[in-house]
């Protein structure tokens, strides 16, 4: 495998087949991808084209059926469940369309849970995390539960929780899908800011071409493949 220098994600011939009863669904049909550290990539494509599936494999939520993918130095195709769990706790974080905060817990406890799971000190937020909370504008909302926050606030807490553990890669699956345009813009600006200031590698799925324009380049997926790349 030819590795471009400092690629944080390298995928070759990635395939994923789901067996649902008698029907086999080919969600990915051979994806090749190289993501250099510090890039902000947008991914667009019709529904069912395999965007989320690609994230689930890169993020270690499910193994590929065939092909090879190395994420942050880990061969996700071969590490097994334990290795993928470690990948999730140490190197990759998700942000979802539906925020996916733990509903019983305050914003602070959501963040503490992520820190605890990744083996970091959960009770003392370090200065970098505190400045991230400032940047996200949620420093004053930490003792609220998700039900007491707006969608925009919840998504910013989700971003804080995702980045609190300093992952090498942030995977954002339609992060603005449930937000109004004002909150969407705020979240997109924050992602761009994080990418520019901290060099955070970000992959973002979106249905919105304006949102896609926040990335350095845009991958277009179709029928389980990356059909084209635009800058």
């Amino acid at each position, binding site marked *: 495998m030819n590795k471009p220098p400092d690629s944080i994600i390298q995928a070759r011939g990635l395939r994923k087949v789901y067996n649902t009863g008698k029907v086999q669904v080919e969600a990915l049909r051979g994806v090749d991808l190289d993501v250099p550290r510090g890039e902000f990539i947008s991914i667009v494509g019709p529904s069912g084209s395999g965007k989320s599936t690609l994230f689930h494999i890169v993020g270690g939520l499910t193994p590929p059926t065939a092909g090879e993918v190395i994420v942050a130095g880990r061969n996700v195709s071969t590490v097994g469940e334990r290795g993928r769990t470690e990948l999730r706790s*140490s190197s990759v*974080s998700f942000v979802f369309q539906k925020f996916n905060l733990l509903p019983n817990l305050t914003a602070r406890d959501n963040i503490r849970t992520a820190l605890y*799971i990744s083996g970091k000190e959960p009770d003392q937020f370090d200065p970098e995390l505190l400045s991230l909370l400032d940047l996200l504008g949620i420093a004053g909302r930490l003792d609220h539960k998700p039900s007491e926050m707006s969608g925009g606030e919840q998504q910013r807490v989700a971003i804080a929780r995702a980045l609190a553990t300093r992952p090498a890669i942030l995977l954002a699956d339609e992060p603005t899908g449930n937000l109004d345009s004002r909150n969407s813009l705020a979240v997109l600006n924050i992602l761009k800011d994080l990418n520019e200031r901290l060099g955070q590698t970000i992959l973002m799925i979106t249905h919105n071409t304006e949102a896609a324009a926040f990335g350095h380049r845009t991958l277009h997926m179709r029928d389980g493949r990356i059909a084209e790349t635009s800058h």
Partner: protein
Amino acid sequence: MIFTLVWENVRFKPVRTLLSVLLIAVPVTLILTLIGLSRGFLDDSARRSQGVGADIVFRAPGTSVMTFSGAALPEKLTEVLTQTAHVTQATGVVNQPIGGFDSVTGIDPAGFTRMSGGFIFREGRIFEKPDEVVVDQFYADQRHLHAGSVTRILNRDWHVSGIVEPGKLAHLFVDVRNLQDLVGATGKLSQIYLKLDDPSNTPQVIQALQAKFDGYAIYSMKELVSLISVNNIPLLAGFINAVVGIGVIIGFAVVSLSMYMAVLQRTREIGILKSLGATNGFVMGIIVSEAAALGFGGTIAGILLSFVTRWAMLHIAPASLPQAVVPSWWPIAGLIAMGGALLGSVYPGLMAVRQDPIEALAYE
């Protein structure tokens, strides 16, 4: 951190939590009540036995510590025993069960008073007529009796001639001859109490008696009291084991069901934890800790409820069913509840661990 997660889970669904805790409390209360009742009953028997003031008790062959009813000793034996060296007094009694946990005891008032120091009357006087009965304060409270009341025992109406302070031999007393005739045991006794010139002669007298009356059950009072325990009542021991078993099963079933529901309800949250990189051990740890918390809560609630049953027993049946507080059984009952709870959490825990994170995250 696990504490926070468990605590917030438990707090988030207070009704489910309360219900689980109360259901787990049921077997704990059941066990503690049962143990308390047996202990109370036995302590009460022991105290009453000591209240007789005897040094030795003499029973017919083939009787055991807790089963001595049936009058099988000839009355003449009392005279014979009085003549034994060191024996200064002998008085015989007849025990007759009257249903439930109660029995009536026939005594010879003169002999019994001499040995025990006599009754202390709170109301009335000793029985004088054949249909008169003396009861102790516990029994009087339980049946709402006073001197002059009429009560039915052994299918006959009796007049309560007096109420005495509890703690001497029995709860109900009638004249021994009267009872002998009534139960068709004229001239027979259930047991004979002996008092010695000096209690330190007890072993020596027992030896002498055993040599002379082969096969008879002869105990020192000390020995008898020490033998009054749960282990000497096979039926009770078996019953306690059964309740302990039920306790484990209830704890298991309640927690199993409760955690099963919780895992289903929290499918998505488990998916979130997994997406954050939570290990199987972490997810399992939360489920098991929550089960342990429910088990602990159930134990505390069960202990508190056992005081409620005790209060109820004291008001309903202070004579037949005295319930002791037995703190030494609190940890045992707790372990039983916790054991059931932890066992019950294993399957739901495994279910949570095996969930596919992608499906769990998609769960509505």
